[in-house]
């Protein structure tokens, strides 16, 4: 799965439909089969994310202070299984999975189970085709042995959340993020 044959800017413009027909054809021609499959995976993912954001209360999702709600929708959409071959495979974060304590509500979430949604979140939220969101599952296990920060388990309570990692330009991990929606802003907290 490689999009390395063409630069990031062209990938983004290709995904956005900003390339002229001739340019788009040329860019596609430069990709191998795996690259084209990855590109299609990006597109399907983006469409799923946009569909989620256009949901029942899209107006709320677009309010600046409602990014948590947007995240919840994105997470839900991203958690749906990939429908077709060629959809991006998602890298699991290192760390153990935890059995659901309250499976009916899905409160306890293992990191491994969240990784797919998390990577998809990054794939969509990143306004440019960054290096992190979609990657082969195989090689990711190598650096897992390093002494890095790991989220072992998280109980989101009655909220919805996800766990993902932030990576730098070279793919190095900068931080681990636990993102939790905040459905009931505190009256006394000003938000």
């Amino acid at each position, binding site marked *: 799965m490689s999009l390395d044959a063409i630069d990031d800017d062209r990938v983004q413009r290709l995904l956005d439909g900003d390339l002229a027909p001739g340019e788009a054809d040329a860019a596609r021609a430069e990709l191998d089969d795996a690259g084209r499959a990855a590109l299609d995976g990006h597109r399907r993912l983006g469409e799923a994310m946009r569909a989620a954001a256009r949901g029942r209360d899209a107006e709320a999702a677009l309010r*600046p*202070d409602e990014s948590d709600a947007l995240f919840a929708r994105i997470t839900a959409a991203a958690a749906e299984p990939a429908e077709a071959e060629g959809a991006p495979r998602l890298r699991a974060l290192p760390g153990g999975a935890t059995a659901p304590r309250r499976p009916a509500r899905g409160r306890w979430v293992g990191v491994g189970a969240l990784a797919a949604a998390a990577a998809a979140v990054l794939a969509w939220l990143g306004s440019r085709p960054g290096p992190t969101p979609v990657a082969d599952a195989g090689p990711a296990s190598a650096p897992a042995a390093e002494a890095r*920060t790991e989220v072992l388990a998280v109980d989101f309570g009655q909220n919805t959340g996800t766990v993902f990692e932030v990576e730098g330009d070279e793919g190095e991990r900068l931080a681990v993020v636990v993102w939790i929606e*905040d459905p009931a802003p505190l009256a*006394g907290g000003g938000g």
Partner: protein
Amino acid sequence: MKNTWTTRPRARALGALAATLALAGAVAGPSLAAAQDETPARVLVVLAKEAAGPIDPALRDVEALQRPPFDAFRSMQVLDRSRVTLRRGSPTNVELPNGRRLRIELQQRLPDGRFRVKVSINRPAQNDYLPLLHVVASPGEPFFVAGQSHQGGTLVVGVYVGDAG
């Protein structure tokens, strides 16, 4: 008698050595134990908004906040920076600007230098926002808990555990 003359200094030397070792043990023992049982940590509380505005200069070195998805926020303000000492078995509380409380507890220092910590965010007499989070934290690699609504923005709480933080 000769032996007595020679053994007395030896006995004195051994006694002094024993006393020195005892003193060293008395001093180093607790400090070694303390090193295992506590560690410094830093908590960074940022208010991030999608509305255009300034980025706090203090965040220039926090590279993670300049990357997706945080780069979707166009203004960031540091609301609080706390330096705390995490102690094993004794939770440390940090009050958040929205009235909730971040609680961090050191559980174990691992042989590889990482720290196993337990984190929660809640407010007395209310439902927990984050009931429980178990993290193995590497010094120098922070973890963030983000998503709380506050003053029209989102709180991003960064936790650095260990000396490198």
